[in-house]
């Protein structure tokens, strides 16, 4: 097979010591970037762009690939240990992961996240190697109408994170949708809820809101609880590693999460958050003990973590096969290509075969490096929990602040971070779930824009959502997801 021969050539390039070193460096930096709240791979790679004038292309892209995958691995760590996701794609991991950590099961949670990431990353990379033209062509069938239906489906899935009180969950979700409206409207250029603040015109940055609600909010809540919180951060009990039961319960969620991750990641407006949400919903619905969800179900960590890493591989498919960036990181990678005078597009695989295959091979290698790097780190990371809570949470506020300020050098953004920290605190104090707010902020603008794009294309005809086959199918699935559980329940009752 042609692809295999190319891939072998790619491996022989990627495994050269100098290139391998760049890969290792990338993985290390990426893991750190993922662990630190507020700093993401897009920013890191953007800051390294000037290096493209000095470092050869192959080494540079191997480095970038390491950072990209590494950040996806690292993102789960703080979510699980401290309930402080550093980026929006790890919000779902925090839900169950942190509950597990509080029950003294931080080790297995980190292990299932790392192994799940490895498996999903590897399967995603295999799909990228052999099937990306196919998957990308399928993803191109998704237009605005399909995205809107997909968002409705996601909104149904959000019901799985609303918590015990439906009213509180919906309040949180709707506040998130409202916050999503802030800024310049893409379709008309009108300003909404910006109150004359230029900083608000681009909307609220999801990362800032997520880090504020989770990290800063959590720290404030801990401070407020004071001595009552002591001893709440559980000492580690039991194994640091996955036991037989952990493996048995994790492998299916890993695979299902992967199946959500890479097709949606490959969609031009898919993103990494949506698959984590759908994976969480699926695992909760399929679980034999759904009551465990909310108290630390390992499936709820395994699935979303796999989904988010597979999505990372998915994002590379349209970038490499068509030159279409579908995420902030992909856009920066694209500009790295152009500063080498390489134009990614439909012809990239022919014109730059060596570079592309080395990059792909380095993704496999990077995954292995990351697994080797992260599994021993589990032992080290859990030691974090031995730090006294006041220092630990003080440190989190410090790092979040530095991360947000470093990303934008904007004092306004830091203020925003603390404002959302306060909101997060109040919500915790009065028992409102914070995850629906983050999901609302992500889904709201996507749903609104794709609906209006679809309506512009259909000249205002709402039937377009039902008559387009894929869109109609997704709507039907969403309707079934809403109705079937209710029917079953009323029958059983």
């Amino acid at each position, binding site marked *: 097979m042609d692809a295999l021969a190319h891939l072998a050539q790619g491996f022989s390039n990627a495994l050269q010591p100098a290139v391998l070193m760049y890969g290792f460096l990338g993985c290390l930096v990426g893991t750190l970037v993922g662990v630190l709240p507020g700093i993401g791979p897009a920013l890191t790679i*953007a800051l390294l762009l000037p290096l493209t004038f000095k470092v050869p292309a192959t080494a540079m892209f191997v480095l970038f690939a390491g950072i990209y995958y590494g950040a996806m691995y690292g993102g789960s760590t703080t979510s699980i240990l401290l309930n402080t996701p550093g980026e929006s794609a790890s919000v779902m991991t925090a839900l169950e992961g942190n509950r597990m950590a509080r029950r003294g099961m931080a080790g297995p949670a980190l292990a299932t996240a790392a192994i799940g990431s490895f498996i999903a990353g590897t399967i995603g990379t295999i799909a990228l190697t052999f099937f990306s033209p196919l998957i990308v062509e399928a993803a191109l069938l998704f237009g605005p109408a399909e995205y809107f239906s997909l968002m409705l489906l996601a909104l149904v899935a959000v019901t799985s994170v609303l918590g015990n009180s439906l009213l509180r969950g919906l309040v949180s979700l709707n506040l998130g949708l409202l916050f999503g409206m802030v800024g310049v409207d893409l379709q008309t250029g009108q300003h909404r809820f910006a109150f004359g603040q230029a900083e608000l015109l681009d909307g609220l940055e999801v990362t800032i809101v997520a880090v504020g609600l989770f990290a800063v909010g959590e720290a404030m809540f801990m401070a407020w609880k004071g001595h009552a919180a002591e001893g709440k951060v559980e000492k580690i009990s039991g194994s640091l590693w996955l036991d037989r039961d952990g493996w048995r319960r994790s492998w299916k969620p890993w695979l299902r999460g992967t199946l959500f991750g890479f097709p949606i990641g490959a969609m031009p407006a898919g993103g990494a958050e949506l698959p984590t949400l759908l994976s969480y919903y699926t695992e909760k619905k399929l679980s034999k003990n759904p009551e465990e969800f909310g108290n630390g179900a390992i499936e709820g960590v395994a699935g979303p973590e796999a989904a988010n890493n597979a999505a990372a591989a998915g994002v590379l498919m*349209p970038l490499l096969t068509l030159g279409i960036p579908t995420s902030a990181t992909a856009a920066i990678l694209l500009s790295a290509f152009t500063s080498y005078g390489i134009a990614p597009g439909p012809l990239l695989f022919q014109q730059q075969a060596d570079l592309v295959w080395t990059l792909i091979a380095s993704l496999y290698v990077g995954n292995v490096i990351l697994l080797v790097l992260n599994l021993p780190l589990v032992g080290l990371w859990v030691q974090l929990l031995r730090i006294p809570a006041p220092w630990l949470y003080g440190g989190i506020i410090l790092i979040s602040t530095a991360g947000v300020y470093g990303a934008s050098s904007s004092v306004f953004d830091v203020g925003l971070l603390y404002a959302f920290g306060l909101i997060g605190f109040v919500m915790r104090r009065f028992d409102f779930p914070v995850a629906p707010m983050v999901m609302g902020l992500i889904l709201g603008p996507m749903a609104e824009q794709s609906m209006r794009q679809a309506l512009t*294309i259909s000249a205002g005809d709402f039937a377009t959502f039902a008559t387009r086959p894929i869109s109609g199918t997704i709507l039907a699935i969403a309707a079934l997801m809403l109705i079937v559980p209710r029917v079953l329940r009323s029958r059983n009752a």
Partner: protein
Amino acid sequence: MKTTRREFLMTAGALGAATLPWPAYAAPMFDSILMFVPAAPGGGWDGTARAIEQACKSAELVGSFQFENVGGSGGMVGLPRFVNQRKAQANALMVAGSVMIGAAISAKSPIGIQSVVPIAKLTEESGVVVVPANSPIKSFAELVAAFKADPRKVPVAGGSAGGTDHILLGLMLKALGRNPKEAAYVAFAGGGPANAAIIGGQVAAGISGYSEFEEQIKGGRMRPLAVSGESRIPGVSVPTLREQGMNVVSANWRGVFGAPGIQPAQRAALEKLIAAMRDTAGWKQILTTRRWADSYQAGSAFEKYIAQDVTDTLGVMKDLGLAA
């Protein structure tokens, strides 16, 4: 990112030195330049700024560069900050371009591109009108016919509302005698989703800067019908709008600006630096690799160009219903 007094004195000294009749190669023209980019790292303005740095440093025109990126809203977050914090700073440069003009109008901001001191226009990029490769529309004449029949039935994809792509569509509809408000303009955030919507056949046509679509055109997934510049893009056989009987010209330009309140001599020093930078082999090399068209223009010609662009943009945005 603050300039220290020491740096300021050194700059002042360097400025003095630059005006003395010493051979140009004896010392850098500027010891340091503060490069202000009103956009996040990685975008077009940032790329231009880094390219200027690269060209200046390899020709030893400038000792060191300091970068400040303040992104957001077409430059409307960064611009006020540059105006307020860098007032009269002789070694501050800001990269900006046509996008900022539209952004300032739609933001109804009192601070616009006229609040900074124009130094030089550097590059220009034509827009291009495309259709998906398998579209029933085969030629520009057929697209024009479709627009004339009913613009609402011809959804066109491009960047955010009020941006250069939207404005070009408005100009085209106006030239055809249709109301620009009838445009079925589908705004996408960023080039990726717009590209995908066009090659996936979700929309009837697309408008963007040529480089944004170039690879899809070369790969045969989009059919280019017309470019929007004054003349054809070198090496590209796509005819201009004018050649096809539509009197519309528009281009996305990028240039550099100085801080408000700098003295005429200080402005002249910056102009001299950029003129020297433009002549370096490094800059010419960058123009070829990035496929940027050199559209250098400085002094009063550039000032006039900006004034005309502001008037034109305001006019189209009113037609589109995006400005009062």
